[in-house]
């Protein structure tokens, strides 16, 4: 079932990514970590749909935020990051997926690992934690190309300082800030062992990013002693999947 959402706010997160806030009158509510499918239809009837994670915390106001990374040859994302305007109406289906979710009743330690725009559903979990007054301890390991590619930078810093959760660890893969202690590179077993909750605390782990990233991050968590049943993953790919 496709619903109509009206664009009520647009915010640039980076040079290529943008957050779109939609007001959806008949929105049934969502859980942190869920996604929506967004469908665009051309004048000739051709339509294309893509999945986007919801960035906003669950709310009762029918407000849904998605953050979209513009892909150079994308069918849908260039429109969403460059052309869509306030007042435009978009078709969306959802909320979707009941497995990669964090519920406010969960009290165990939470380990979040994001690769690039994989931060989006994890941000919904961080926001949901704050909005619900939960005291579940969160840690976030955020792998990103360079400082300019970080989504929600100021909000993450403030939440980390004021609420002490999530504890933040950035891993830069191409360019680091000046005087950064670690050289740029992909996340490895030692960084995961150092930044993530010890497996003895039995954290629930949520990993989101491109497929190869998720594959290696989930492998490192597993090698640290986290059970398969405690590691939930959400992969996205170049076409058809999450952007």
């Amino acid at each position, binding site marked *: 079932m496709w619903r109509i959402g009206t664009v009520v706010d647009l915010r640039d997160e980076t040079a290529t990514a943008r957050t779109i806030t939609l007001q959806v009158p008949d929105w049934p509510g969502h859980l942190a970590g869920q996604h929506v499918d967004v469908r665009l239809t051309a004048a000739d009837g051709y339509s294309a749909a893509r999945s986007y994670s919801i960035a906003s915390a669950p709310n009762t106001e029918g407000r849904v935020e998605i953050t979209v990374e513009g892909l150079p040859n994308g069918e849908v994302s260039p429109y969403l990051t460059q052309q869509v305007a306030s007042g435009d109406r978009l078709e969306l289906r959802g909320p979707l997926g009941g497995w990669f979710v964090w519920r406010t009743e969960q009290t165990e330690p939470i380990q979040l690992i994001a690769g690039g725009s994989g931060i989006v559903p994890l941000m919904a979990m961080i926001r949901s934690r704050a909005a619900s007054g939960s005291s579940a301890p969160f840690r976030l390991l955020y792998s990103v190309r360079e400082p300019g590619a970080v989504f929600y930078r100021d909000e993450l810093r403030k939440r980390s300082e004021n609420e002490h959760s999530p504890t933040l660890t950035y891993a830069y893969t191409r360019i680091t800030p000046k005087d950064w202690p670690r050289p740029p590179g992909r996340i490895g077993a030692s960084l995961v062992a150092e930044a993530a909750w010890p497996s003895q605390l039995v954290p629930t782990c949520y990993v989101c990013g491109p497929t190869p990233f998720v594959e290696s991050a989930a492998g490192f968590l597993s090698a640290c002693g986290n059970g398969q049943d405690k590691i939930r993953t*959400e*992969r996205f790919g170049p076409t058809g999947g999450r952007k």
Partner: protein
Amino acid sequence: MSAQMNYLDGNAAAGELSKIFAIDVTSAEGQCAHCGAKKRFAEARLYMQCPGVVARCCACEHVLLRMVNVRQRVFLDMRGMTYVNLDAA
């Protein structure tokens, strides 16, 4: 990107499956008819590069589900799963 890295998670089929099922199938537990593994459908390996959607068991890679859209019709093959245990709450 290697062929082995072209898959997503069963999660990503939630929208397509919502066209058919009233209950979220991705969070349901299913049993692989080939190896007997009991997993959430969200944990399956999902291939979407084809004309439809193919989900494979994350333990043995046997095909669990195939779904193809042709015009206004949907072809659904779920014989790769012995059962699906849905939360009807």
